[in-house]
């Protein structure tokens, strides 16, 4: 048992150790969030007074629903595409074939280079003069004109997937590599063909990992800013909508702040629901 004096000392030291992290949290996150919140409730350009007009005017615009819907469509689309890409990729990579390490590095490349540069390359690749369109025109029947991919919603989802799939791919691969090979062999001996093993055994067992990875991909895609900023064209999700309020003079900080608060609340609500669903035993 600790004596009372040493117990007090223990608490004090713990608090001291925690203080840098807590201080960072309050000064660099909580305080800015409060500033954003206060700003969103002030009349534009004023330091006093309270108003809800920034929320009301934004939410009353028909554009608001469009912007919010677009943000969700892009992030959920990116999650779905990433899952569809990650499962075959994980299955291929766990075989440890030739150049295994190279492909593992390839998988994380989009997360290591600046996203903007990736987006630039994608714009060049999928542009009307890019290789993808040249390929389509040359080899695919009935395609004679460049197809527009850049600055469209499917194009954006493609770019998001390129940038944010590694989260899901990594958790999926880790889960696949953690599976006891005997479990699949058991299903195989029991008469399940390759597809049945995948459907009844492998996929159910890696689903928790896929869902965990998809939280990260969703968060990243929901808050994505650089990609839609340069590759979004007329499609502006919430983050770009916020930035546009302060990018032009006169900067509308209060309007931007109100939109930022709406975005933060939407993300927290969505994540909370998602976590609830995750916690529910899947089996």
């Amino acid at each position, binding site marked *: 048992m600790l004596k009372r004096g040493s117990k007090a000392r223990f608490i004090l030291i713990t608090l001291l150790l925690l203080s840098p992290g807590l201080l960072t949290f309050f000064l660099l996150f909580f305080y800015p969030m409060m500033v954003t919140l206060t700003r969103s409730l002030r009349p534009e350009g004023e330091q006093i007074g309270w108003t809800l007009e920034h929320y009301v005017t934004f939410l009353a615009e028909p554009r608001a629903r469009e912007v919010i819907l677009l943000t969700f469509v892009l992030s959920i689309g990116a999650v779905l595409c990433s899952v569809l890409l990650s499962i075959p990729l994980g299955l291929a990579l766990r075989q440890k074939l030739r150049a295994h390490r190279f492909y593992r590095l390839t998988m994380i490349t989009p997360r290591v280079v600046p996203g903007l540069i990736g987006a630039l390359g994608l714009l060049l690749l999928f542009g009307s003069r890019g290789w993808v369109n040249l390929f389509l025109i040359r080899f695919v029947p009935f395609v004679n004109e460049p197809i527009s991919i850049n600055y469209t919603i499917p194009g954006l989802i493609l770019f998001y997937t*390129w940038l944010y799939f590694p989260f899901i791919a990594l958790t999926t691969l880790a889960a696949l590599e953690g599976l006891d090979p005997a479990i699949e062999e058991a299903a195989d001996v029991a008469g399940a063909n390759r597809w049945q093993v995948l459907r009844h055994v492998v996929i159910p067992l890696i689903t928790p990992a896929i869902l965990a990875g998809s939280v990260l991909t969703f968060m990243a895609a929901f808050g994505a800013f650089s990609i839609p900023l340069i590759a979004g064209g007329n499609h502006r999700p*919430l983050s770009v909508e*916020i930035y546009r309020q302060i990018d032009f003079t006169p900067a509308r900080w209060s309007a931007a702040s109100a939109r930022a608060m709406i975005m933060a609340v939407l993300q927290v609500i969505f994540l909370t629901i998602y976590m609830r669903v995750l916690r529910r035993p899947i089996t």
Partner: protein
Amino acid sequence: MTLARKYLNAILRSRKLLIQTLLLCFALMIFTPFLMIVLRSVGRGWFGRLWLPPELTLDWYRWAVEVTNIVEITKNTLVIALLAVLMSTVIAIPTGWALGRRNIPGRELLMSILLLPRMIPPIAFALGVAQIFYRTDLINTHIGVALAHVSICAPFAILILSATFEALDERLLEASGVCGANPIRTFIHVVFPLILPGVLASMIFTFTTSYNEFTLTLMTYGKDTVTLPVRTYLAIGEGYWEVTSAMSILLIIPSIIVLFMIQRQVAPEKLVGGFKGV
């Protein structure tokens, strides 16, 4: 066409070949965008439906170096990234130690609160950070931009380090004490070597995050603190794609060097960081 058919038949016969082909397509999907940038940066007169630029040139690189102050920008980016690494590590070591090794009531809750900045879109609190920095004259300073980065780097550093410290075996510390080592010697000879990989992983992760960070930089930079991602963004806005491509290639070199330097020491997955934590 017969060659293509032969290859198709071979794929259908061999599963290995099929997988190799799929992986190759995947690698193409990841790397062709960069190849496009390289080609664009060295090509002249590349219009119409051509697979490759008709004429090669290094003019765009000359332009890129003359127009943008590449050295200055790289220096800014590195200084800011190193400052962010330093501050995040200094913050995360004590806090990570407390979270990992001390029995704190409500530890899970505390952890999720500290990780909250990673769950809110950065643009939301970047607005507040910018307004605070305008008031306190931190706008357009290296330390200011680095501080902004710390807001999202520190939580992950804490996450990684608390996991590292938690994994330390208490018995090893006791054994060292029994062997007659005082706490300082125990730290130097036992604790430090054991936590080094974790600390390194956290620093690398912080570095790449800061190096690539765009949103928070865009809200807090000034003419003296232009970083690599911001400069790329501005160049894209200016619309000279050839010059922008050349600039991107120059700016991406440091991150490729970092990647190659560390990929032998740290599992590549670590660079994406802490995905188990959320």
